[in-house]
């Protein structure tokens, strides 16, 4: 269809690169990529998408850096970890947009969940194990590590001293929990739902309780990719915004669950993917319905707000992953592709939310990005 908007596109706006290889990891929040590919939202913007499933976040990073993939569904924190070269190769990275908020959870082994639910005190429940508890998360600088550490610290448990945290790939976490090698884990869906279905553990917290509407996965790429192919990057953001908008309807989330269940995407039965994608959690554990995963919410989800990224830097400093005087605010604003995002959002007719957003986290502290140094100084539990 030749809409006026499409007609106004001059040759100068055409994508410089039309075939885009998109990396993703087998998680429910890869839904926008699946929707964009299955419904070919890219075609009307001159893009052909190719989805490339990755077995690890390390592979996502390496392939982004080597150019084998152009962009990826990535943990917010992975982008910052690579930018800073924490524990691995360094590269100048870009966050093109936020793909989703919320939708991750913390699962405890059955005995630990029972002890926790009875006493309501995590510290006591952990002490009942009589040995150092072992928790799994997904990547050292990733979101799940930060949600887990924040949640533990807010309850007086030191994440670096009182527990041992290891990284286990999500599909293997449930096995490790079932075999008694883990006492708890923090991971994206559907893996918490899978753990419950296999009766290996109970979901005791969802991440929107830690930080309501926290940033989670982003559309990540190298900064030189954005510089070399600005029209492609903008067209890709437009495409993904349309996919995110499509996912706002419950009927579409039900549809995408069926597709995500396919072996080449997640390979987990639809019944384990759909409920939590639709926001249905166990009513006994969660009498008040928690904020579910959000992909669009009238555009409130997707703006790559630099202060969201800055939060991860405060946590890296808190846990000793980052030290020295980097200009954290400058790092976050160089990564966040706000100008390009605004152009794409205007073309896709998506509202851009306010620059400042203030949220109260689980420990009662308010994060609005205005004074990161004071926010960091206010933490009693730290490395």
């Amino acid at each position, binding site marked *: 269809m030749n809409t006026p908007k499409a007609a106004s596109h001059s040759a100068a706006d055409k994508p410089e690169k039309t075939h885009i290889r998109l990396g993703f990891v087998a998680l429910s929040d890869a839904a926008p990529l699946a929707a964009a590919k299955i419904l070919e939202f890219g075609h009307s913007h001159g893009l052909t998408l190719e989805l490339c499933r990755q*077995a*690890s*976040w*390390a*592979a996502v990073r*390496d392939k982004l*850096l*080597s150019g084998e993939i152009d962009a990826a569904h990535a943990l917010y924190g992975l982008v910052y970890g690579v930018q800073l070269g*924490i*524990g*691995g*190769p360094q*590269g100048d990275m870009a966050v093109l947009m936020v793909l989703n908020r919320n939708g991750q959870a913390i699962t405890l082994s059955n005995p630990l969940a029972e002890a926790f639910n009875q006493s309501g005190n995590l510290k006591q429940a952990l002490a009942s194990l009589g040995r150092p508890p072992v928790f799994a*998360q*997904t*990547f*050292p*600088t990733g979101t799940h590590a930060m949600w887990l550490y924040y949640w533990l610290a807010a309850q007086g448990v030191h994440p670096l001293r009182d527990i041992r*945290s*290891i*990284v*286990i*790939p999500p*599909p*293997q976490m449930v096995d*490790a929990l079932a075999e008694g*090698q883990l006492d708890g884990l923090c991971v994206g869906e559907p893996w918490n739902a899978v753990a419950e279905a296999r009766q290996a553990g109970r979901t005791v917290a969802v991440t929107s309780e830690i930080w309501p509407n926290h940033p989670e996965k982003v559309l990540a790429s190298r900064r030189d990719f954005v510089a070399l192919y600005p029209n492609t990057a903008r067209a890709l953001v437009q495409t993904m915004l349309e996919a995110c908008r499509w996912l706002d309807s419950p009927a579409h989330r039900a549809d995408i669950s069926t597709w995500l269940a396919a072996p080449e995407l997640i390979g987990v039965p639809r019944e384990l993917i759909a409920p939590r994608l639709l926001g249905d959690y166990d009513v006994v554990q969660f009498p008040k319905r928690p904020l579910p995963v959000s992909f669009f919410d009238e555009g409130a989800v997707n703006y790559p707000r630099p202060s969201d990224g800055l939060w991860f830097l405060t946590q890296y400093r808190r846990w000793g*992953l980052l030290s020295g005087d980097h200009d954290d605010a400058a790092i976050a604003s160089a990564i966040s592709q706000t100008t390009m995002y605004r152009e794409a959002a205007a073309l896709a007719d998506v509202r851009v939310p306010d620059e400042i957003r203030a949220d109260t986290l689980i420990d009662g502290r308010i994060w609005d990005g205005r004074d990161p140094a004071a926010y960091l100084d206010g933490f009693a539990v730290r490395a």
Partner: protein
Amino acid sequence: MLRVLLVTDTDKPIGDLRQALARLGYDMLAEVATPAALAKVVEEQRPDVVIIDTESPSRDTLEQLAVMNETAPRPVLMFSNDGDQQLIHAAVSAGVSAYLVEGLEAARLAPILEVALARFAREVQLRKRLAEAENELADRKLIDRAKRLLMDRRKMSESEAYATLRKRAMDQGVKLAEVARQLVSMTDLLG
């Protein structure tokens, strides 16, 4: 002597490197195949080099160890210009990832990666040949189906059907299998 750990959790035969590397005089630790075992071995036995499939899901386990523990092997930087790093880049494209402790000279790593590289280059060749054979078989099945469609619906003989497909392929300048694919998918569409 360098202590080398092989992680064998994908179907690529990394374990086969063991003997070749042992012959070169490396101290080969017992290989591991699960992320939990990997974490334990790296912490307790402190290998100098970990060789792991690039597509292994356990790679993130090593990333965590590299960040949390200064003596744990770190992922190799693949994007430098010097010769040894090129070798490492080649190893990675062949499907091998290496993690090594900081300060280990690349020269000492080179023979390990050469062996891994040779092994995996051969593996890649074999896989390619297998994939080609599979494609060929699929193409042949498709052409047979297209022939049968023409024979059923247009009452052609087998050789007429084949000649028709071949003529079309030559006229259009595409592969015979492609013509067959078009015919079959159009027929599926029309029912």
